[in-house]
């Protein structure tokens, strides 16, 4: 806890990121109880109303309150980000750790597959996979997770490589501990730091990419509120009623920015060369 407070005191930007994130999470979790509007119920009489006291961010083409949709959509978007990173982390880290720890042909095979996935621009592969799986939120999440997993595999592998030659691992091996125990309790636990930094940064790109898929119509399907899909659904009204598309877009920007502010400072914090410069 002391370490966290020290980190936040030294890194104003990380603190700003954390505050933005907490405010967003607060609005998203409490907001839906306070609003009297439904995110999906149509109200054609009040369509495309400008921001006012009743509708702080105006209404969209179906008369739905934009703020309410952002609050519900934020639940979807943040859950998506966490879900995608969780899948990418689980798959990437287990495969990468195994490759680095086992070495030999396992390592060679895993790294070729990782190289091949990294040979695609991430968004292109995510779009192609999501298109093949069929347009739905689950499939979009899976597609983005597949493109993020190799980054985790790379970091995990290099962690495993450098940790598995440490004396305490050699001691564990000579004590005759089973390989899976060594892998989990020695290699994984000690290599966690950089992986957590990677996760924070990946959260930002996961949200950005899933929103992009939603924008292209490959993510959340209407009427489900989701930020990226909401921007794209309201594109045609942007010239007359800018708020309908810009408000969810700004929400994406804020969420991604908060993760990047925290992740960027964390990366500096864990980098000894940078850290001395901050001190």
């Amino acid at each position, binding site marked *: 806890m002391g370490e966290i407070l020290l980190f936040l005191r030294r890194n104003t930007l990380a603190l700003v990121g954390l505050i933005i994130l907490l405010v967003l999470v607060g609005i998203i979790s409490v907001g839906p109880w306070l609003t009297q509007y439904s995110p999906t119920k149509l109200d054609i009489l009040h369509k495309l109303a400008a921001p006012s006291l009743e509708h702080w961010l105006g209404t969209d083409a179906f008369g739905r309150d934009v703020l309410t949709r952002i609050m519900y959509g934020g639940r979807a978007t943040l859950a998506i980000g966490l879900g995608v990173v969780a899948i990418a982390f689980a798959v990437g880290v287990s495969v990468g750790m195994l490759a680095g720890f086992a070495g030999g042909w396992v390592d060679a095979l895993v790294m070729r597959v990782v190289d091949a996935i990294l*040979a695609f621009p991430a968004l292109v592969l995510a779009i192609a996979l999501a298109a093949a799986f069929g347009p739905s939120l689950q499939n979009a999440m899976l597609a983005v997770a597949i493109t993020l997993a190799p980054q985790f595999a790379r970091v995990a592998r290099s962690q495993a490589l450098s940790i598995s030659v440490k004396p305490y691992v050699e001691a564990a091996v000579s004590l005759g501990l089973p390989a899976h125990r060594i892998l989990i309790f020695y290699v994984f636990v000690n290599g966690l730091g950089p992986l957590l930094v990677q996760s924070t940064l990946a959260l930002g790109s996961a949200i950005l990419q899933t929103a992009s898929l939603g924008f292209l119509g490959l993510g959340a399907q209407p009427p489900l509120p989701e930020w990226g899909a909401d921007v794209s659904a309201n594109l045609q009204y942007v010239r007359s009623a800018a708020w309908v598309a810009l408000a969810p877009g700004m929400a994406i920007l804020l969420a991604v920015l908060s993760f990047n502010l925290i992740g960027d400072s964390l990366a500096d914090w864990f980098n000894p060369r940078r850290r001395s*410069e901050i001190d």
Partner: protein
Amino acid sequence: MASFLIRRLIALIPVMLIVLVIVFSLVRIIPGDPATTLLGPGATQQQIEALRTQLNLNEPVVLQFYHYVMGLLTGNFGYSLKTGQPVAVEILNRLPATIELSVLATILAIVVGIPIGVLSATRPNSLFDHLTRVISLLGVSMPAFLLALVLQLVFANYLGWLPVSGRLSPYLQIQSVTGFVILDGLLTGNLPGAVDALQHLLLPTAVLAAFLAATLGRFVRNTMLDVMGEDFIRTAKAKGLRRRDVVLTHGLRNSLLPAVTVIGLKFAEMLGGAILTETIFAWPGIGRYMFEAIKNRDYPVIQGTTLVFALLFVLTSILVDVLYSILDPRVRRKMG
């Protein structure tokens, strides 16, 4: 150099094979029978059978893959389900537009990003440094479609300075020589056409360049700070060189090398971003072609464009390696 290139290309073979397997599988992972799904609900049994034969779906998977790869090697990327046109031809027609856009965006990003990085590194922890850090984090956090929308609203709708979308105003015509509109305009002496094309290019270029410029500025700042702590910088200062010479000829030169790698890698990511940018600005490149293919569930086109994006990426990475060895004699010697 030649042997280095050859070894680099040989190392690519296993990776490219897996890339091909992934692209090949794209049509095969569609739930249900691919031919039925591809043709949609209105298809007759005869049409479905014809497509099955065309895609070699009645053969074992390994043979299907063999036919697919052999087809690619002879330039056969399949046929669009919507227009019936060969995918390879359609992609080649649209490639210049995408290259024009992304190359210009890369140049813009370099011109903006590197000086910002250098200035930040020479004044670490100054107000300027903090400001550029915040702006660059904003740049990488900004969804491309949001930036595009804001720029369109401000510069096209509100100020009316630039066109909203497209590649050329409909009343103008430019004779095609190379496929690059601005170049063609200049080559055929069509100056108004070239200027009009440039105006159309500005907004999409800015959107595409923003992400790269932000990343690059940050990256150059960090490498340069590392370099400025090296012994040879202290020697240069001790020799009594002017600060400008120390920063530019000693500091910047040694920081640019890693930046080449970042530019190469991000160039590829930018191609992915081009799908969004081209869609919003109605830019007739392969990104928009892919987007339309997704809307129409035109899988051969999705496969073709995905493969071309991957190929461009891989070619860029080879180019980066070659550039690297040209720029750094140490690397050249090691690579033989």
